[in-house]
């Protein structure tokens, strides 16, 4: 990991620590909690899409699997939220592993379709397995996290919890990127067959990064479940999978920082646009369109390039 990344991490940590002092309003913190939760997913997606070049239109399902495993275990079976979170990671990781092996043999749009279909099937199961999931009505009263005797209840508590995990996940991801494995991932993106002939077990790494991104999404899902304390299937459908891909694309796929910027932008933007009422849908669509047209590498890369150019 380069010096630049360590510096960026330190700056991020500083900003994270300081922000609540400046904002002090639980609504803003609440928005930032969601930014953090979505960042966890988009960082994983950037590893999968930006670095390895494999598309997924079904990551909302992994987010949902984490949320539901965690929520159901802790609410209906009295499992501690932390254990439930771990269980979510194992369940989601296991399912991701099973789907990854056949799906990642597919390429391009066929992979996109397979992940979409998988996501949709999971969404249907959330709706139909009502004895566990409460069906379309969902279920509530999901317990919150505890640290010893301390109950995490306010937005500030979750803000620090979520963002601590974001930093950890960032650290983990940056370590992977700047390693032998990260190089292998990028070589798969550049030319899968060539990478294979040069000695990279491409199938293995594709599966690994897919499972890893699913695990990140599951972690995010568990945090979501124990934060919002109510689950129904709507946030885990096709629509959200697309939003996630849009976040990654808008921020800049080829960088975990870009993925975070995208998550932040597409989470905060609709909050700004609340003031515009119905028109928000048009403004949101236009901004998305313009960014992709004029900064196709994403905001992060676009801004970096501009800074360099101006110098």
């Amino acid at each position: 990991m380069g010096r630049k990344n360590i510096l960026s991490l330190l700056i991020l940590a500083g900003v994270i620590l300081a922000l609540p002092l400046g904002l002090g309003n639980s609504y803003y913190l609440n928005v930032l909690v969601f930014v953090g939760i979505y960042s966890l997913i988009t960082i994983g997606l950037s590893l999968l899409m930006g670095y390895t070049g494999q598309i997924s239109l079904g990551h909302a399902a992994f987010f949902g699997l984490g949320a539901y495993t965690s929520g159901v275990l802790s609410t209906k079976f009295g499992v501690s939220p932390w254990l439930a979170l771990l269980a979510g990671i194992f369940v989601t990781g296991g399912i991701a592993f099973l789907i990854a092996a056949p799906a990642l043999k597919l390429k391009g749009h066929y992979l996109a379709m397979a992940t979409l279909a998988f996501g949709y099937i999971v969404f249907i199961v959330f709706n139909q397995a009502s004895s566990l999931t409460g069906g379309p009505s969902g279920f509530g009263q999901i317990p919150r996290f505890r640290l010893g005797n301390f109950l995490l209840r306010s937005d500030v508590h979750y803000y620090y919890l979520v963002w601590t995990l974001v930093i950890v996940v960032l650290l983990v991801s940056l370590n992977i990127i700047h390693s032998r494995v990260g190089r292998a991932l990028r070589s798969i993106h550049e030319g899968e067959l060539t990478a294979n002939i040069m000695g990279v077990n491409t199938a293995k790494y594709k599966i690994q990064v897919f499972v890893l991104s699913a695990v990140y999404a599951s972690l995010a899902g568990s945090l979501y479940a124990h934060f919002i304390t109510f689950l129904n299937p709507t946030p885990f459908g096709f629509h959200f999978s697309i939003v996630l891909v849009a976040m990654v694309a808008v921020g800049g796929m080829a960088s975990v920082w870009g993925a975070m910027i995208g998550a932040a932008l597409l989470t905060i933007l609709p909050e700004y646009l609340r003031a515009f009422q119905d028109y928000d849908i048009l403004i949101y669509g236009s901004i998305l369109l313009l960014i992709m047209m004029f900064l196709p590498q994403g905001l992060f890369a676009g801004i970096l390039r501009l800074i360099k150019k101006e110098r």
Partner: protein
Amino acid sequence: MSLGDQLLQYLFTGITIGAIYGMVALGFNIIYSATGIINLAQGEFVMLGGMMMVYLTAIIKLPMVVSFFLSILIVTAIGAAFERAAIHPLKSPSVITLIIITVAASILFKGGAMFAWGKHTVSLSPFSGEEPISVLGATILPQTLWILGIMAATVALLILFFGFTLTGKAMRACAANRTAASLVGINVKTMVLLSFALSAGIGATAGIIITPIALMNYDRGTMLAVKGFSVAVLGGLGSNVGAVVAGFIIGIMESLGAGFISSGYKDAIALVVLLLVLFLKPSGLLGSRERAEFKKF
């Protein structure tokens, strides 16, 4: 109702649903084969077609036939304008960029339709009466026959167009190899424009003919796009006959699934089959493996 009657009815239902999906999938195919783009705004063309038709017939009170062609024409123009405004200016965009651009466009179309026509679900009177036709104890709506007829005509026209006209052949050439096509003097950018216009037109046609059965509102496009995309992939991207066949397969599977297994899981059943097909034959039922491998990300 005897089991036989039920089975026949499920089949009719499947054919009706399948024809709807097949029409949407045809639109996907045209843009995909000319450009390699998966246009996630395809469902919005369908929605626009349906809403436009309802607007022209119910509000402007134009005759059916005039409205039919006018709606298709207007949506075709919208498709072309979208290509000019958002796709044409791009320089060698990545596939994910294109996907997000079409998503953004679909948000805009949806928003536009919401402002233009409101949020209510609208319906359209069927082309030739509402009296169901009885066949051996099962029933089918005359509108379904219209859908099937227009779909057959569309596929036939597409085959003629791609097989026998110069423009059609040029579009196929672009699909096979863009660089080579431009080397022999085909204006690739024009072909892309054409493919968007054509696909919007077909989408609009689909929207118009399904509205009497499925109704329409501004929010309907996304799901139709997802189904259409599934069908196009199952049939093998780029294969028009494949799209029609796969449409019927998915439609019939959904209706049999709803009838005999569980209406809640019917979509899942169809999707599991889709996944299995993809895992066993990664280029779809009627797609060619080589073509799938050439069209990389």
